[in-house]
């Protein structure tokens, strides 16, 4: 496909037209089937969660395991605003995003000076602390949040239309961020923090920026999630939820935006498809996950971005090289 010259057409018109077309295709497939609509909505929400986590983990190289915590903030802010404040849905979602962004900023500022595994543990800890705060919310003066019992009766505002719209907007914003000056600075931070610093990249600023943006979109996903499940419950946003997003981006390929979109779709659809296995479902999921990691550790889609111009996607792939280590002593 020839590159489209016109900047405006390339950046606004093409994504809008393509996503509208995709929307109508999906709606016509799922037409009048509530379950399909639910699955599609869930896919869209997971796309938001996974791509935003990939911004932090894959593109900025800051290993976060606390994404569910920010999702919880978004869910609780948006959910309680529509239920108790009678806010309009979109306003509440944006407020949820803002809340999650504030949480992300507050968590990111102190923790992002840690590196690698320590950062992972710290974010995991903060994610759990957010959940614990919610569990103890009734004792902390926020009686209406009902603590561990959760808040039922959230209106089901998250239609597939809204979820799809927000997923497209999220991916569009993230793509524009990632391939902007700031995004490249984040890439530099990921590749080599010291070198980036030496080149005049304010590493802390970019780390906190990515973290805050990622957290705010997690909040958006949380708000949509709450208005889909019609329930606010602390157990929905535990460590396993963070793991889910991590699995999506690793399966899709770290630092690959389209990869994490596909990874989110793949994981969501697989988990739904496995429902028929009943009890064995999570077992099959775990085996599948381990096999994907063993046979394709760079993720199903590697680091190759998928775009309309590059359908070389199915090109023959290189065999996974076996580097050292296996026969130690001999080396």
């Amino acid at each position, binding site marked *: 496909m020839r590159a489209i010259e016109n900047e405006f057409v390339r950046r606004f018109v093409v994504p809008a037209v393509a996503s509208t077309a995709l929307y109508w295709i999906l709606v016509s497939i799922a037409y009048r089937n509530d379950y399909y609509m639910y699955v599609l909505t869930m896919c869209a929400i997971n796309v938001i969660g996974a791509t935003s986590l990939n911004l932090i*983990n894959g593109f900025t190289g800051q*290993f976060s395991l606390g994404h569910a915590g920010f999702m919880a903030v978004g869910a609780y802010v948006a959910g309680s605003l529509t239920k108790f404040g009678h806010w309009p849905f979109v306003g509440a979602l944006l407020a949820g995003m803002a809340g999650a962004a504030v949480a992300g900023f507050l968590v990111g500022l*102190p*923790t992002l000076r*840690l590196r*690698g*595994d*320590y950062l*992972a*543990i*710290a974010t*995991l*800890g*903060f994610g*759990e*602390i957010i959940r*614990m*705060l919610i*569990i*103890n919310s009734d*004792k902390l003066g926020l009686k209406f949040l009902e*603590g*561990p019992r959760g808040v039922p009766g959230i209106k089901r505002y998250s239609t597939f239309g809204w979820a799809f719209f927000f997923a497209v907007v999220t991916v569009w914003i993230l793509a524009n961020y990632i391939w902007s000056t700031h995004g490249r600075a984040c890439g530099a931070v990921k590749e080599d923090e*010291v070198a980036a610093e030496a080149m005049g990249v304010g590493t802390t600023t970019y780390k906190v920026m990515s973290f805050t943006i990622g957290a705010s979109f997690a909040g958006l996903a949380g708000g949509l999630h709450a208005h889909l499940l019609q329930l606010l419950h602390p157990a929905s946003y535990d*460590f*396993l939820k963070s*793991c889910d997003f*991590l*699995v999506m981006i*690793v399966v899709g390929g*770290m630092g690959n935006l389209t990869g994490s979109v596909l990874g989110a779709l793949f994981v969501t659809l697989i988990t739904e498809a496995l429902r028929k296995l009943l*009890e*064995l479902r*999570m*077992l099959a*999921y*775990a*085996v599948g*996950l*381990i096999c994907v*990691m*063993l046979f394709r*550790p*760079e993720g199903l889609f590697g680091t190759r971005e998928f775009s309309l111009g590059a359908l070389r996607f199915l090109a023959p792939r290189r065999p996974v090289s076996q*580097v*050292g*280590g*296996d026969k*130690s*002593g001999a*080396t």
Partner: protein
Amino acid sequence: MELLQQIINGISLGSIYALIALGYTMVYGIVRLINFAHGDVYMAGAYIAYLIANRFSEETVWRFPLILLASMGGCSLLGMAIERVAYKPLRNRPRIATLTTAIGVSIFLENLVRVAIGPNFLGFPEIITRTSWEIKGITISNVQVVVPGCTVLLVLVLHYVVHKTKAGKAMRAVSFDRDVAMLMGVNVDNTIRITFAIGSALAAAAGVLVGIAYPRIDPYMGIMAGLKAFVSAVLGGIGIIPGAALGGLMMGVAEVMAVQLFSSSLKDAIAFVVLIVVLLVKPTGLLGKVASEKV
């Protein structure tokens, strides 16, 4: 008196965390992997003990040590199998790949037990007949003596293995610098395998002890306990064996105190608050040394 009583309760809980934390810290020290499946090995240990104890109900003095050893043996095989199947092929890959497999293994073990044995809480059989003594208003049960006692014994054995045997020397060498250890003729594969075996055996012991002290087991018991034990390992300084034991004890006492002073719903929160404070104040942990990063 109340305080002393709580400390005694805390030590009992803390020695269980300490045993799990030792496995975390050893594995982390040697392959730099946060082994998320470790908490589930602990769960597996409790279940193996549960199954054996129900088959073997004869009341003898040997019942407890035999069950303990069997469970430890079973779990060390499990640990080696996990290492061989899930971690070894990915050893030279980015760490996130191994971490994801670890999460996969964790989900696998939980659901395997859930499907094979059942998702509900099970009452752990009474392997040791409970008695308790009252000394000046403090109640101490024999379990509260056995649990820390076993922990101390196992930690001493571990200390001996790590510092006085050839395998232990190899473990220390590999954790110090894997490539150089390899050049010096250390069989790195075997050493890593042994580390997993020992760590898993300790987790199994913790599983048996928790079954005795808090006789209720379920397939998901490993998640929270594993996370808390991991926090204990970080608290003591990850990769440092005495640190893990110290961190575990402190975590147990802190948790019991938090429940006593504030509320039982803060039971799980305290671990993470401790974690954040440690990471922000002294990320290398209580016993950790500051290592300057080479550029």
